[in-house]
């Protein structure tokens, strides 16, 4: 077979180090929050002959949940900040549609990846537009989970000012009982999101062969030369801000 089939690949630095650190820290604390959250919601039966004073199982689980919560929240704030100062693939415009081109790309990703129509493969180097738009809702879920979580936490924290910023939350939900339900239900968004996310990363790696999975490790993606050239002509990427 002739070599002409083999395209030349260009290496693109897509995910900067702060984005990668954010990503894996976020993944870790979310897993911890889900595990501890499930435990808080329905603690396991512990058979123990020790005195209550000698154990602190639920206490530790809750402590871990709250420590992870702080990390989760400030990591999230950092990511928002990075959406303004990071490279174009990290920019907030990747998540919030600001042009008609954005919607056109969402439609084309939808056709190709979900309806599985044959067509020109989409060309995004960073997030594709549909993924970016879904991440926007993911960030909203982060916000909901932080607000409901810190709202619950406000009345049980030692009283330093930060959690107290959220002390208005329970009243908005008509009390802690419903607030907890919302917090619990939102957790399922995280679980489902994680499944979709991991699946789609494998999917893209598989059908595109551009190093999707490893990109969150080293930051590199590999795109074909002709795609690279097309991109230089396209107005689709937001300018570096």
């Amino acid at each position, binding site marked *: 077979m002739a*070599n002409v089939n083999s395209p030349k690949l260009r290496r693109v630095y897509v995910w900067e180090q702060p984005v990668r650190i954010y990503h894996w820290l976020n993944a870790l604390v979310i897993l911890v929050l889900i595990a501890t959250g499930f435990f808080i919601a329905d603690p396991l039966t512990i058979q123990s002959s020790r005195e209550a004073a000698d154990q602190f199982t639920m206490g530790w689980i809750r402590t871990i949940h709250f420590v992870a919560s702080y990390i989760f929240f400030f990591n999230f704030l950092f990511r928002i900040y990075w959406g303004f100062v990071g490279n174009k693939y990290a920019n907030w415009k990747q998540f919030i549609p600001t042009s008609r081109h954005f919607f056109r790309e969402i439609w084309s990703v939808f056709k190709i990846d979900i309806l599985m129509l044959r067509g020109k493969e989409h060309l995004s180097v960073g997030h594709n537009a549909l993924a970016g738009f879904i991440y926007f809702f993911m960030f909203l879920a982060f916000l909901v989970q932080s607000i409901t979580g810190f709202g619950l936490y406000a009345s*049980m924290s030692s009283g330093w000012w930060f959690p107290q910023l959220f002390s208005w939350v329970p009243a908005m939900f008509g009390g802690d009982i419903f607030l907890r339900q919302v917090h619990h239900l939102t957790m399922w968004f995280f679980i*489902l999101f994680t499944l979709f996310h991991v699946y789609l990363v494998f999917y893209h790696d598989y059908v595109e062969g551009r190093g999707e999975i490893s990109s969150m490790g080293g930051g590199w993606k590999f795109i074909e030369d002709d795609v690279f050239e097309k991109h230089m002509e396209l107005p689709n990427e937001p300018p570096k801000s």
Partner: protein
Amino acid sequence: MDNPTAQKSPTYLEEFKRKGYSRKDFLKFCTLMAAYLGLENSSVGQVVQALTNKPRLPVIWLHFQECTCCSESFIRSSHPIVADVLLDQISLDYSETLMAASGHQAEEAMKNTMTKYKGEYILCVEGSVPTAADGVYCMIGGKTSLQILEEAAEGAKAIIAWGSCASNGCVQAAKPNPTSATPIHKLLKGKPVIKVPGCPPIGEVMAGVIVHVVTFGRLPELDGLGRPKAFYSKRVHDTCYRRPYYDAGLYVESFDDENARKGYCLYKVGCKGPSTYNACGVTKWNNGVSFPIQSGHGCFGCSEENYWDNGRIYERASAFPGFGIEATADKVGKVALAATGVALAAHAVMTNVRKKKLIKNLEKEGKQSEQELKK
């Protein structure tokens, strides 16, 4: 508070004495109230002064859709003065349950208080107001509850919603709420209402709220839901004596099991203490004898909004309204999880079918490079 028309009314202290209580009893009572209100020691004097000098506060106490458990709780509060004196002393000018007068006389008394003490009296409301069918579900003396409430609220100095009925509708407002039972703060727009929820509220808490209004002449500090912070800023869970078992992870698994006999935490059998703001763990009930958790039954959140619709009493995971008939958040989640699994598996299969050529090409390309490397 210093209202010339009320000048002739006796002060609290005078009434206490008339009832046969000694000054010592009086001081004890003041100290107790100050403690319930969470005041500093130095403020006890303020309470004493207020009750010594201030004339009795006229009170109109209305009953709508309710079971009178709030009145019951009030007259049974632990300190004899609360029951015996304070209730009399707040000069209940109108209360369907407790006044001696009836019929036109009673209506007359209420009208008198409303005109004579305009802007001075405290309006206490027990019960919710049904607004369906033009209010026919609860009418007194030919008037609907709403009419009576609005008239009485007009000249009130302070409005207190006793109990969960007046504060959040309680059981009669539970779905489907056939009479459109409505808590009073929703009907008295723009008027501050002190909510004292609970089913019933604790008698000492009720007395404390009144003493606060008498002493300071203004509403107590309220939380986001309009409840006095002095009594509703802590969760039952925060003052529960079983809390060490909660933290240790030792729970009653079912009523009457070994753990229940050991007095473990009731979290897993549905205790809503972690989400309920009330003073039960501290003040307790019936002269401080006990409170539900001490008697082996979880808190069911009676002082929280919509507690009847907020899920099952004996289960930790609350039912989530709106999904199917009643599903817990986890049931909803598990269904979504299964659906996701199926969808993703289908997608994976379809990918290999529909994008066969694409994948083949990638593979070919990769293998070719591999071959070339071998050379």
